[in-house]
Every structure is written in structure tokens, then in C-alpha cells.
């Protein structure tokens, strides 16, 4: 995989996701980062070749659900895989995320194994 985007307002969590991707043997050439949905959309505009997005839900400025909806509304964003990575584990939130267009859902805290299992249906 060439380029992915991690959207989370915590730099610690962005670092943890990077580490878990390495542990899960997901090979990525470039990892871009954004601290909220607005920044995430801007990165996507400036780097249209991003192949996968990991996004938190609760973030300032623009939350992850609204960002997913905005990505899906873009012509080029309809097939881009998006994985939500969040502490929100309630069924209603999972359903809301999937209905908004997310492809997979990982609940924090996660292990490399549970992270890998969530990515498997996406062929990653």
C-alpha cells in the first residue's frame, strides 16, 4: 500500500496506529496524519492518491462521521476504504458509522490481532 491517512486528534493514538500497522505487517510507504475531520479532508484533497483512511469519531472541528459523509459525497471518495478507530463501542454508534459509509470499525483499546481482524474483510 502506498499511502494512507490517519485522522485522530491524539498524536499518541496516531503513533499507536502506526506501531500496530507495523506489528500487523501492513506495509505502507507513506503515512499522512490529520488531527480532525477538516484537516483530513484537506489532506485528501491535496493527496488524492490516498488508498486507505483510519479515522477517530470524537474529534474537535469535524467529527469522524461527518468526515466520512463528506468523503463519500465526493466523486472520487466513494470507493475509498475507511476504518473507524474509536472508543465508541455502542451498537448504535457502530451502526451510525457504517450507515455513513465506513467500511470497518475498530474499538479502542485494540491489540495488533484485533486490528488485523478488522482489516481482513477489506483485503488488507
Amino acid at each position: 500500500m502506498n499511502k494512507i491517512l490517519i485522522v485522530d486528534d491524539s498524536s499518541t493514538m496516531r503513533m499507536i496506529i502506526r506501531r500496530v500497522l507495523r506489528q500487523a505487517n501492513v506495509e505502507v510507504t507513506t503515512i499522512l496524519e490529520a488531527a480532525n475531520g477538516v484537516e483530513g479532508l484537506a489532506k485528501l484533497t491535496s493527496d488524492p492518491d490516498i488508498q486507505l483512511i483510519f479515522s477517530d469519531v470524537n474529534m474537535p472541528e469535524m467529527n469522524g462521521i461527518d468526515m466520512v459523509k463528506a468523503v463519500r459525497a465526493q466523486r472520487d471518495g466513494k470507493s475509498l476504504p475507511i476504518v473507524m478507530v474509536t472508543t465508541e463501542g455502542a451498537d448504535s454508534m457502530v451502526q451510525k458509522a457504517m450507515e455513513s459509509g465506513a467500511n470497518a470499525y475498530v474499538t479502542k483499546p485494540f491489540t495488533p490481532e484485533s486490528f488485523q481482524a478488522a482489516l481482513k474483510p477489506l483485503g488488507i
Partner: protein
Amino acid sequence: MSDVKLELPHDEELNRLLQESAREAFDTMMAGFMGSVVRSDSQGGECAPAPALPAAKVDREVVVDFNGPSNGYFSLRCNAEGAMDIARGLLMMDDCEALKVEEVADALGECANVVAGLLKNKALSPCGDFKMGIPRHCVPYETRDQSGSSLLCHLKNGVVSMEVWLQR
């Protein structure tokens, strides 16, 4: 129309779920690093119910608010050493590696976020639709004087106190 009483977990159950959430967060997020983070000789195990840390011993506090059928909050308070323990544990850094102030603050916020999220999923979501706020750093004990369920975690060099309070 009859009044529907919200069946929130009682204090003892809330404390058990808080302890379970803290342990799960630490075990998962600091896996492989736990041995050096949590002191094995601490009284009552790694994290045990105890009164909240007195204000004089708290250097940092992060609060996550709960809103919904009832309002409340989760609070993580620690001394400087406890903050460094958590940051090093999450970032998997050795004692000799330097940490920036903002890295420690961010790690504490994420730790509070994860424990509060687990607690919400275990204790609150079964009772109704609760929303969780974004972690916010505040002056210890500045605005909160309620006393809720609390526990104390003895880490490698420091101590962390976690507390949950719900309006009943």
C-alpha cells in the same frame, strides 16, 4: 405518564466496572510494557478502590464528561511521575528517552479517553444513549468537588487516581 427511573449501576458495581476498564486499557494499550509500568508490590493489586488522590498530590487532571439520561464525568488525576509512567507506557519509551510536555499531555488525554470509553460501554450504554466529551485538561480539583467511585493505580514511579461520578 409514569416516571421511568434510570437504572444506573450502584456505586460498588460502578467501582468494579471502573477497575475492569482501567485494567483492560492498561493491559491492552501497554501490552508487553506492563511489567515495567505497574508495580507488583502495590497494596491491593495493580488498581484498587481507594479515596481519590488529595489535591496536594495531584499535578495533572484530565476530565471526560458524560451527557445523556444522566450527566457525570470521568477524571484521571496523577502526580508528575504517574503522568510520565503513562506516557512512556503508551508510547513504549524507555526511562532514558526524553518526552516533551505536549507528548505527556496528549498521552494522558488518550489514556483518559480510552478508560472513559470502556466505562461508558460497560456501565452507561446499557442504560441509555450517553454521549462522551473530548478529554480536557484542567487545573486539578478546580471545578469538581463531588465524590464518586474512585480507584488508585500504583505505577512504576508514580500514582494515578481515577474517579467516576454520576448524577443520581
